[in-house]
């Protein structure tokens, strides 16, 4: 390799290395703030106290969904491995919302419970045919998408 090319290669690699270090440090510094959501146990531990509005993420506890008969108001409990938080929400829920579904709720704490202004359903990375899923668990969860009916 002739000297000119070697010099160019070194310059390019140095610029790239500098950019990698800069971005790496930025990402590392932002690590604390880049979390999209807090889990119920993190909220219970007071990690979300600095935020007026934040996102709460976890699973909808099976059987915890309570719909009010005359409005769009809905109450449910979001759980993670070792925490639970009751959530209140008024509005239209996404198709995937149901028992044992991962959800992300945006809102704020009001006393002991969380008041959501938006509820998003987090999809998981598993894809399988309905028949297979039905065969795997013959019980009730296998229905395609039945979010508009109140799950049992």
């Amino acid at each position: 390799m002739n000297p000119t090319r070697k010099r160019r290669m070194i310059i390019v690699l140095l610029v790239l290395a500098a950019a990698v270090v800069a971005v790496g440090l930025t990402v590392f510094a932002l690590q604390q703030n880049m979390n999209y959501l807090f889990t119920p146990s993190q909220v219970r531990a007071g990690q979300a106290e600095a935020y007026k509005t934040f996102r709460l993420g976890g699973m909808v506890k099976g059987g915890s969904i309570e719909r009010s008969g005359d409005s769009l108001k809905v109450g449910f409990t979001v759980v993670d491995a070792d925490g639970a938080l009751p959530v209140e929400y008024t509005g239209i829920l996404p198709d995937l919302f149901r028992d044992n579904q991962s959800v992300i709720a945006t809102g704020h704490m009001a006393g002991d419970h969380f008041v959501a202004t938006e509820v998003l359903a987090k999809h998981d990375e598993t894809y399988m045919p309905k028949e297979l899923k039905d065969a795997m668990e013959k019980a009730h969860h296998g229905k395609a998408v039945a979010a508009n009916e109140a799950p049992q």
Partner: protein
Amino acid sequence: MSKWIPLWLHKLGSPPIFYRFAGTLRPWFLALALIAGAIGLYGGLVLAPADYQQGDAYRIIFIHVPSAWMGLFIYGVMAVASFIALVWRIKLAEAVAMESAPIGAAFTFITLVTGSLWGKPMWGTWWTWDARLTSELVLLFLYLGVIGLYHAFEDRRQGARAAAFLAIIGIINVPIVHFSVNWWNTLHQGSTVRILGPSKISMDMLWPLLTMMVATKLYYVASLFGRVRADLLELEGGKDWVRRIATGEQATGEQA
């Protein structure tokens, strides 16, 4: 250096030889891409069973996921070609890098649009600023930046060198896009198809997906060859071999 690069590769780097080589191969790549695409789409949209929780709406992954892979793959090709272009000043590498950018931008755009269309019914929102979506948007802006910078210069080769720098620096974003779902809590789900370990998708859904991946790769090669050929003709405008093609003295058996 010439010791470890075989002679045919050296020859292939020369514009007139690459022009003919790409012209011969391009129809084959295009035909195979169309066949694979037809098989993949038929398999994905007709043969594959409905998903257990999303029903038929999941079928957008047969477009969304291959496009997302191509967005990252093409960026990698562009960055490597940019590196070669900067260090060795090879015209062909410049052409490959600069002509890859619009194709990659198109795939990234398709990824963002299909993801958004799927996100509204499934997640409940068109867009959210989580790490995966944001870094994918940054990828699109990087592509647009490379295209814009390239065209901002009067002298094409100077523009290509400036844009190549941007392309190389932007490669940092590629691992961020890929690993964002592991590094941070995101709304976007994790990787379904894994090279290491079992994929989280059933076989009758996986094969159309992989067929679509092959189809998009072949399409990229065909599209790139066509674009690079046109670019080389323009870049080498005054040279003998271009003049011969233009005046039709040499039968290449192919139109540009």
